């Protein structure tokens, strides 16, 4: 209960930070007053410009951060459960490599243009899903196909897609190379309400499915044969869970690029705090991941303002010490 309360409190604080902190300083209470005024309580004291900054720049960015953090964390936790592997993360089956290749094709294709084309997310999304589909086709068939086969297929597909991406990059100009690189590092800078509404349905559906799979993943912790003998349709559960995690991750990655670390480390932090049951790990990872990513993004966009740190770098710099501290306070447990 303590952990749940603390996580929800952190989530609220993260949301406030996401709205309040920025290059234009606006008093916290006035921002909160403005939020309440939108709910029909009281009157806003913000100027139109300030309101614009809050609602057109910071709010969509904060919401996209919440969605990305929640999705990546719950997908990572789900993958760790379904593969019974502590090193599993949402990019395990090739989502990252596929999205990377898709984005690279989109960006290098336009040669000398100075902007990343608007259809980059679409190609990234398609690439991500294609990579997972190929992985599943190679490694996921057959009643007794093991998760090890699937992971190896994921490794193979990821290397194939990555090498294709490297080849394209090597053939491309330095400017487009830089833009590919920036895209790959992940950022919430291009967040808008339209990108939020684009990924929202995927994230909501996929997060709900992943969280609902908690009980099934707990059963799976005794291994595939045993969980089958306990009545679990292992293959179907695995397929549903992998499709949900991958689809949600692909949607997020296409919107914000590759943000590392959240998917692997947040579920582990939560596991250390609440134990090994996925019925607890997954819902708390949703809130924890969301709060964590919004905090990380607040740091990313303020430390070197007006320029930004890559979000993936911040998640690792902030996440690693947090993880080490919790690890040293608690006895480590395998998933």
């Amino acid at each position, binding site marked *: 209960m303590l952990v749940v309360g603390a996580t929800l409190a952190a989530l609220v604080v993260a949301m406030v930070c996401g709205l309040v902190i920025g290059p234009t300083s606006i008093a916290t209470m006035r921002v909160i007053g403005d939020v309440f005024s939108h709910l029909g309580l009281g009157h806003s004291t913000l100027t139109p410009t300030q309101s614009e900054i809050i609602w057109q720049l910071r709010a969509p960015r904060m919401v996209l951060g919440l969605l990305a953090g929640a999705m990546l964390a719950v997908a990572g936790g789900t993958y760790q459960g379904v593969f019974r592997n502590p090193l599993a993360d949402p990019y395990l089956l090739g989502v990252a490599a596929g999205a990377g290749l898709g984005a690279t094709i989109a960006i290098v294709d336009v040669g000398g243009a100075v902007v990343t084309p608007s259809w980059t997310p679409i190609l990234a999304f398609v690439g991500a899903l294609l990579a997972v589909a190929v992985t599943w086709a190679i490694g996921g068939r057959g*009643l007794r196909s093991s998760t090890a086969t699937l992971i190896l297929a994921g490794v193979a597909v990821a290397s194939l897609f990555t090498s294709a991406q490297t080849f394209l990059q090597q053939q491309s100009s330095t400017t487009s190379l830089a833009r590919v690189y920036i895209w790959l590092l992940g950022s919430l800078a291009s967040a808008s309400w339209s990108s939020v509404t684009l990924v929202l349905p995927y994230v909501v559906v996929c997060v709900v499915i992943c969280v*609902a*799979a908690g*009980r*099934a993943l*707990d*059963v799976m*912790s*005794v*291994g595939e*044969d*045993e969980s*089958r*003998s*306990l*009545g*679990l*349709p*292992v293959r179907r*559960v695995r397929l549903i869970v992998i499709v949900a995690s991958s689809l949600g991750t692909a949607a997020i990655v296409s919107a914000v690029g590759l943000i590392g670390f959240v998917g692997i480390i947040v579920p582990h932090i939560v596991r250390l705090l609440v*134990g*090994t*049951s996925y019925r607890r790990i997954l819902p708390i990872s949703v809130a924890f991941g969301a709060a964590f990513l919004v905090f990380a993004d607040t740091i990313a966009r303020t430390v070197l303002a007006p320029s930004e740190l890559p979000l993936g770098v911040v998640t690792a710099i902030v996440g690693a010490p947090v993880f080490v501290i919790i690890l040293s306070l608690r006895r480590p*447990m*395998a*998933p």
Partner: protein
Amino acid sequence: MSSIEVLGLSVRAGSATLISDVSLSVDAGTWCTVIGPNGAGKTTLVETVAGLRRSSHGTVTLSGESVSAMNERQRALRVAVVPQHPTIPFGMSVHDYVSLGRTAYHGLLRAPSAADRRCVGDVLERLSLTEFAARDVATLSGGERQRMVLARALAQATTVMVLDEPITGLDLRHQIAILELLQNEVRECGLTVLATLHDLTLAGQFADRLVLLDQGRLVLDGPSGEVVRSRELAECYGMELRVIDVDGADVVIPVRH
């Protein structure tokens, strides 16, 4: 009425034939133990009966229903499995572990019902595990752990239980304890048991019937006393065996030359 019916069963893995043309039937409320040397196909046989392996030929029926036609949930409601090397999940309590046996009843999206919780409580009580209920499964001794795995299988409340070497790695006292618990379920509750055992003396003492497998074929099927004294048994192991009657129990001893 026979509870387990195996008819002309063959199982292949790639080009290897693991068991071929095995037929046997086990009456409801009786205990049948499969014996035979390593590689005889004992594990394959019990796994196929439990529906965890597909047969290449032949059929397995449980109370008249084909195992291969059932889905996982239907199977879990009819046959419980105690595997040879159960996976012990980290960080789970004994109570939660035993509750996994009720999965097929409450499903994957709902919490265990009051009836499920009552059943788990009963089983824990019956197997003297109540005091361990809150303990982490990883902290149990070998004997306690095996009792817990048996409890999970009993929580499934099936009419058939399949056990693969359920007493491996246990000391003598714990071996007898597990087998007596099981015998009690057979006698008191009418459970049908199909087990594999390496210890021929214990196999003979606790089963109503022994089935001898060798190289994937059924060699002998009969009452325990007859099978342990048979010429075929010694031949399958390639050893001279002597059977001594100790207070009415057959003790099988290998003779060394």
